[in-house]
């Protein structure tokens, strides 16, 4: 039963992609439908698989893929609550994003290629989630990176999109180098053990804490790249150059979630090194705060959401690093739904009004799109953590985890991050709700794009109430609720303060159309934020000076040592050849003479 469902889940997107690439690549009508239907099959199968295995023990299906004598490469699937839940998230969001794309990409000439990449992207992500061991996870992790590159750079004729795709690829690659080394170290210690063994046994007890710390840190490099943690976060906002459904898919449920999922997947490994976890917590805190600040003054609707994604990813990593994998995964779940909805809403607005700028969107009448407006408000409320939207519940879980984590100071940082989140979420709402002047721009809507938004809005409203059950499903212990009232009170205070600040800056009559709000008065801070805290500058500087310097040295070595050796071999062969061609005089008698000399030498050799 589960193998059939699993095959349906994993093979459908693959068939969709290759069906398009091989048969429907020129057929712009059939390719999208074909892809959406098969993705739907996959999504439904993930849900069936989840709901039929709510109470069953983890299942592992694996077989030996390569037998290398003393080592075996095993490929397989591991289905436990964590991967089942993640499969469902990825499957459902992928399906909704593709359904939405039917409308969004209606006029694009390259639809078949788009849907093929979307399917392959979902396919590799599903495989990554279901992977039973870390080597397999690494392989599909890289595939996820590849297809995200192709999707972000889908409009490759736009130079900014091509640059963004390259940036995303390079920065995640930078992290993946660490991840790769970490995986190799882990493999050399433990062999290719499955996640099940890694989770069950105390295999790590024999290794020194320093070594474990290094491995955890190296693997976290990969997580930081994919899940856009400081200082590798800056690819994510740039990746908004891709089509909006791609942003919705990549930046909610799949690619950026891969890093968080890996943290949760190998949670026992990471918990083996509390120092590493503390470091992750620190990095994630920086990420959350920086991204929230960056979101405050952004004017591009998609980039605001991108920064909020980075910020929320930071929250997830914070929760996991503080020791509550369940809280992090729960936030990943709720965030996946409301954030993909927000991106889809942004897509509707951009598609029909033709601009990304929130002030232009406002003046063109963004608030008159009923479905989009509803989705935006629900999404922003969930994002800032308002009761009864799903974000409220998952954020409470995170606060709870942080308060019981290594140090309560992180709780206050998270609270501050949420306050900033509330500021920029409500800024978005108020800017769109109270435009300076409003014109009646021409609008055209695609009905099919409304469906996923409505569905996601409904889940955003409902999902939170299953929070306890979901965390219990993931293996959370009995809930300790002491101090919960305090947490809720503090977070609600922060929320109201944030909303109020936004209202005073963007909502009241004489401030309408203000771009920066509060930051108008502090130009220094504005400059710093506009330069994105100089993270890009530092990275570019390190890249130029360090990496380029190193590559110059290596280039010199390549040119003067390796290349010289190669040339030496080549030149000596050429010289030898030039010398021996003299023998080839083209005269029969010379050949005869050489032949006789040769025979004479052989005779002499045998006689002596």
């Amino acid at each position, binding site marked *: 039963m589960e193998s059939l469902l699993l095959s349906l889940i994993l093979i459908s997107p693959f068939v969709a992609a290759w069906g398009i690439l091989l048969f429907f690549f020129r057929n712009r009508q059939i390719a999208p439908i074909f892809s959406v239907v098969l993705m739907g099959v996959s999504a439904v199968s993930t849900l069936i698989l989840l709901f039929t295995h709510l109470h069953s023990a983890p299942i592992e299906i694996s077989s030996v893929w390569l037998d290398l004598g003393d080592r075996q490469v095993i490929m397989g699937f591991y289905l436990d609550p964590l991967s089942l839940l993640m499969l469902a998230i990825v499957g459902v969001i992928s399906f909704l994003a593709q359904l939405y794309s039917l409308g969004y990409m209606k006029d694009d000439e390259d639809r078949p290629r788009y849907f093929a990449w979307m399917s392959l992207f979902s396919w590799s992500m599903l495989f990554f989630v279901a992977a039973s061991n870390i080597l397999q996870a690494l392989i599909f992790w890289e595939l996820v990176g590849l297809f995200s590159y192709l999707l972000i750079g889908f409009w490759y004729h736009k130079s900014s999109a091509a640059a963004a795709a390259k940036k995303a690829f390079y920065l995640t690659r930078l992290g993946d180098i660490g991840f790769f080394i970490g995986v190799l170290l882990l493999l050399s210690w433990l062999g290719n053990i499955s996640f099940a063994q890694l989770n069950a046994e105390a295999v790590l007890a024999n290794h020194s804490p320093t070594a474990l710390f290094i491995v955890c840190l190296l693997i976290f490099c990969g997580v930081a790249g994919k899940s856009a943690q400081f200082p590798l976060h800056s690819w994510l906002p740039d990746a908004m150059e891709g089509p909006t459904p791609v942003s919705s898919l990549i930046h909610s449920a799949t690619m950026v979630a891969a890093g968080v999922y890996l943290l949760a997947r190998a949670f026992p490994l990471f918990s083996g090194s509390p120092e590493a976890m503390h470091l992750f917590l620190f990095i994630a805190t920086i990420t959350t705060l920086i991204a929230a600040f960056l979101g405050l003054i952004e004017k591009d609707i998609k980039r605001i959401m991108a920064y909020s994604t980075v910020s929320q990813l930071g929250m997830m990593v914070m929760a996991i690093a503080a020791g509550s994998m369940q809280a992090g995964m729960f936030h990943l779940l709720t965030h996946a739904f409301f954030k993909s909805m927000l991106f889809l809403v942004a897509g509707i607005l951009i598609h029909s009004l033709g601009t990304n700028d929130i002030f232009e969107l406002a003046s063109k009448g963004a608030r008159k799109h009923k479905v989009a407006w509803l989705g935006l408000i629900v999404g922003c409320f969930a994002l800032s953590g308002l009761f009864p939207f799903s974000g409220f519940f998952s954020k409470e879980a995170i606060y709870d985890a942080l308060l019981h984590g290594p140090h309560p100071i992180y709780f206050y940082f998270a609270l501050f991050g949420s306050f900033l989140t509330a500021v920029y979420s409500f800024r978005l709402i108020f800017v769109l709700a109270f435009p300076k002047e409003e014109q009646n721009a021409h609008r055209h809507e695609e009905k099919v794009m409304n469906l996923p938004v409505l569905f996601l809005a409904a889940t955003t409203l409902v999902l939170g109430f299953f929070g306890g059950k979901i965390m219990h499903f993931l293996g959370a212990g009995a809930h300790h609720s002491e101090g919960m009232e305090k947490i809720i009170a503090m977070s609600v205070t922060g929320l109201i303060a944030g909303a109020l600040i936004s209202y005073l800056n963007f909502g009241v009559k004489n401030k309408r159309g203000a771009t920066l709000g509060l930051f108008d008065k502090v130009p220094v801070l504005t400059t710093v934020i506009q330069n994105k805290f100089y993270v890009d500058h530092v990275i570019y500087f390190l890249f130029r000076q360090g990496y380029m310097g190193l590559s110059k040295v290596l280039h010199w070595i390549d040119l003067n040592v390796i290349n010289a050796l190669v040339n030496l071999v080549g030149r000596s062969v050429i010289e030898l050849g030039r010398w021996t061609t*003299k023998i080839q005089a083209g005269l029969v*008698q010379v050949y005869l*003479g050489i032949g006789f000399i040769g025979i004479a030498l052989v005779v002499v050799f045998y006689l002596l």
Partner: protein
Amino acid sequence: MRGEGLKAMSDQLSTYLVLAALLFSIGLFGLLYRRSLIGMLISLELMLNSVNINLVAFDRFMTPDKGTGQIFAIFVIAIAAAEAAVGLSIILAFFRRYKSIDVEQPGELKG
């Protein structure tokens, strides 16, 4: 005395071997030095005949009863005749093509 010395020489194997070696060397020299194909062919015949002398001489001095060497020599002569025929026809074809029998004329294999 003088006649006896010659007789003694003619009773020895080494005399014939030296003669054959001289003949072979002359033939080899001619083969490598002569520019005309006819001259080369003649030199080749000389070399073959030096081998014949060797065969006959060994037959005479080592195994007088069997006559194997004689038979070998006859075979070599027969094959030399065939070889001369083939060689001459090659030379003819060569001449038709290059209007000369100078072996330096074709330089197509020159590297």
